[in-house]
């Protein structure tokens, strides 16, 4: 069995809550990511789902080293990512890239498309000698389905979906091994979403990419992912293959989440058992003791407050963090 390309272990990221006018003091911590561990195998797509505040975007930022982790490790091809500095960090950047959500702010409006897609080559000049860059940029534009003749246009002259393609071309330029898609299709129209999703799938095959696909749309994630991790309040509560999660979810939160997703079939109306969650998501500054989901869970018992359930193999044969994990099919 091949080695994982990415191994994340007990990743933690806290943001300080500051207070004070003249000189700010730390009065609390937002526990955005609180002990996340997973592996990413070469060529696979790991979907990461969760609702707002679960920490999935912070996870993306930390993996890209746009934020430094509070603790924890991540190994890329066996080497410790967070210890890298200088030239080694630069080389790492060539291997892990990101596609961001908002097509309207992810491209510098004052740079031409050619400049934007060519910038990776300017920063990492050793990858392509100066003369060949123009050709490489055109090739990238072509690969993502854009007209290479538009190399001198500005972002505002493109539609949202096209801008997203430009962002993908930029991420692809250095031939990374891993691309983190942070809600990469969420801001697109439905019919364009499909185009970009197909593009991502196709590129994965063509370039041997591994994706960490972060999204809140469960239908989209199911479509693209080999394995899926479900996050809640900074932790992974369940992780398994796409089939495990969607057809045999064992964690109550996953079940509730899946049951709430509308399905485009009116015949199912009234026949679906929607699990309704009580209350609001607790604040990440002060998460509940023990199992974080216990404040909204219908299975809650005393042990849930005392002991945090470990992410271990439970009912269904995949990793789940619930003392009372039980398989239950909720997707019709």
């Amino acid at each position: 069995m091949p080695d994982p390309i990415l191994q994340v272990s007990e990743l933690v990221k806290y943001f300080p809550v500051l207070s004070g006018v003249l000189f700010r003091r730390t009065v609390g911590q937002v526990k955005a990511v609180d002990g996340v561990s997973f592996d990413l195998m070469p060529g696979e797509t790991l979907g990461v789902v969760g609702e707002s505040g679960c920490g999935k975007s912070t996870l993306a930022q930390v993996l890209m080293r746009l934020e430094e982790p509070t603790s924890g490790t991540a190994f890329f091809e066996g080497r410790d990512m967070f210890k890298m500095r200088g030239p080694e960090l630069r080389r790492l950047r060539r291997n892990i890239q990101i596609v961001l959500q908002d097509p309207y702010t992810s491209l510098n409006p004052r740079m031409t498309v050619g400049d934007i897609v060519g910038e990776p080559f300017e920063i990492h000049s050793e990858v392509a000698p100066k003369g060949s860059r123009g050709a490489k940029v055109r090739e990238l534009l072509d690969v993502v389905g854009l007209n290479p003749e538009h190399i001198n246009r500005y972002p505002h002259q493109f539609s949202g979906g096209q801008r997203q393609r430009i962002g993908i071309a930029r991420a692809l330029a250095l031939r990374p091994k891993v691309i983190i898609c942070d809600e990469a299709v969420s801001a697109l129209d439905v019919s364009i979403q499909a185009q970009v999703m197909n593009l991502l799938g196709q590129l994965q095959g063509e370039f041997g990419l591994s994706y960490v696909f972060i999204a809140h749309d469960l239908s989209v994630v199911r479509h693209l992912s080999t394995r899926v991790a479900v996050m809640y309040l900074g932790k992974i509560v369940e992780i398994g293959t796409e089939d495990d999660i969607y057809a045999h979810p064992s964690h109550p939160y996953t079940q509730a989440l899946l049951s709430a997703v509308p399905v485009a079939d009116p015949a199912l109306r009234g026949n679906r058992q929607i699990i309704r969650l009580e209350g609001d998501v607790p604040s990440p500054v002060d998460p509940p003791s023990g199992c974080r989901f216990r404040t909204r869970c219908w299975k809650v018992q005393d042990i849930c407050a005392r002991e945090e359930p470990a992410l271990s193999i439970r009912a269904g044969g995949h990793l789940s963090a619930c003392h009372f994990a039980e398989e239950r099919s909720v997707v019709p």
Partner: protein
Amino acid sequence: MTDPNIAADLSHVGEVAPVTDPANGPHKPRSLWGDAWRQLRRKPLFLLSVFIILVVVVIAIAPGLFSSRAADFSDLNHANESPSADAWFGYDNQGYDVYARTIYGARASLLVGIFATLLTVLIGSIVGIIAGYYGRWIDSVLSRFGDIFAGLPFVLGAIVILTTFNPPDSHPGEVRIIAQVVGSISVLTWPVAMRIMRSATLVAKQLDYVKAARGLGASTSRIIFRHLLPNTIAPVLVYATIALGAAIGAEATLAYLGIGIRSPVVSWGVEISDARDYFQNVPHMLLFPAGFVTITVLAFVMLGDAVRQALDPKAR
């Protein structure tokens, strides 16, 4: 993130093909600067203000073209005469030709305006970008530092600075006094430019394309010069145009107080100052230079307004 409101800008709505559709053949690339320029060209406000400013600049560069008499020309026989064919702006109480003085005074006023603004914007931008980009304690320190300067009342501060350099009744040379006035104005107004640049930087820093650049491994200087500055310069530019006008007004204020430019150097402020005791009997002594100051300041404000509108991508 959702698609922009359809009522705002149609060519940016979701997936709608933008106006420069490939199907319509090759189009010239339209940068935001190019678009802004195209828009500006059409605005009468912009054209008028540029015209006025250009005229003033030409007057400052080549006053000889406009006035056959030198600034120090004096004929006491004609003192206090109203405007006539001989002297278009009349004579002041010392027999100076007001028109000639006004023409020659443009240079000093304009020089103060331009250099004070340049210096203010330069200092303010550098400090602002550093504070905004690095944040945390650097930001705290620099912002507090700027607050100290911002807290000084302008006139009081200027008086203190200028009288320290030039004891009362001294008559410094032209270059020296202009440099000092420029310096005083800059020292007291740079925090404004700093704040503008700082907040623009704070906003720009959060934008996705900056994150993408960092993710690519871009160096700090590349991020600042390629990604932050081009997008933060717009508000500073707008401020600069207005500040120019304000600096000219400040020069007049300082001259009026007797601590700025003073004889033998002539500027609009000096003229206004000289007119202070004679205004009621010799109104033209005051009105013409004051009029020039007002019109010039207004022209810069109009320019700033037009530029701001053109550079605002949302107001398209």
